[in-house]
């Protein structure tokens, strides 16, 4: 069984003020074992 998560999140904006922009990034790698509750990205 498999779970596929699809979601919108902020991306970098070339013209945006960098001090206020918050860009989503994953904190996992392929083949990582993850457990429920652990962060996938921030």
């Amino acid at each position, binding site marked *: *069984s*498999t*779970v*596929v*998560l*699809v*979601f*919108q*999140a*902020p*991306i*970098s*904006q070339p013209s*945006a*003020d960098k001090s*206020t*922009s*918050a*860009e*989503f990034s*994953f904190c*996992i*790698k*392929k*083949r*990582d*074992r*993850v*457990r*429920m*509750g*652990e*962060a*996938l*990205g*921030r």
Partner: protein
Amino acid sequence: NSSSQGNTLLLPGATVATIVMLGLLHARRLYDDQKIEDAREKGILEFQPDVKATFMRLLPLRSISRFWGTLTNVELPMWLRPSVYKGWARAFHSNLEEVALPLEEYASLREFFVRRLKEGTRPIDPDPCCLISPVDGTVLQFGELKEVGAMIEQVKGFSYSVSSLLGASSLLPMNVVDDNTNQDGGQEGSMDDTNQKSWWRVSLASPKVRDPAPARPMKGLFYCVIYLSPGDYHRIHSPADWNVLGRRHFSGRLFPMNERATRTIRNLYVENERVVLEGKWQEGFMAMAAVGATNIGSIELFIEPTLRTNRPWKKLLHPEPPEEQVYEPRGTGVLLKKGDELAAFNMG
């Protein structure tokens, strides 16, 4: 004497031949496994359909799945339960120390399979800006979907589109592009006109109404594919605080979902039976697809206990379109908090 001598000579000969043959098969298997491992490490695991994959399409996998479910639902005698569950845990690397109840209290393997865990064994990341894993498992793919008709790679050489996974009517990539376009003064009006009939498209297509702040960051569409092996904890939790606006149920095939299957079976994720939940979180659209497999064919939704999956398939040649359910109140749906339990994969 001569006949006994003949037998003595014949038996070792046959035995040796069998051992050599098994040895060669084993060596071949080890060689193939090593090749796959090397390819995986290099990130070039390629799609290679084979005869076995073709043969799988001929098998009545849904019936096999339901039979497996019936078999594993048989109540086991109390004295036998610990041995069976310990055997299962040994075979599939489950951690029995995390199990919430004493093993004797799980009446069947099916019940043990969807076991809850002890309180505190899965702490939820407290960062309010993070998205947590909804399940225990192995990360197969993740990334950002950048183009219209966004595709998720099954393995190198074969991909499937997000819209075919979530539903043909979704038009998700187009909405995401328009969502971003709207930041620059795009065609918001025309999108609203065409999307009024869809409960979730409306939620995506009006970013200016939801958040008129000019400094609002642009939004991208991301995905993450997590595979659950048979020994894993099989309950699904909410990855963030979100409003689940609706659900689609695709009654499809039930191919296995292991690594070999992803390499050899075309359209695995979009042909298998699955339940898709769609809604909104603080950053916009969110959807989660729970894809079934032969051994784990049915998906139970705690937010909709009446949903039944893996039922006998009546129209083999013309599978029905996905069955949709809009959650009330319309536009708000069901509010789930990060870490809330929302579904489970059941055996069979």
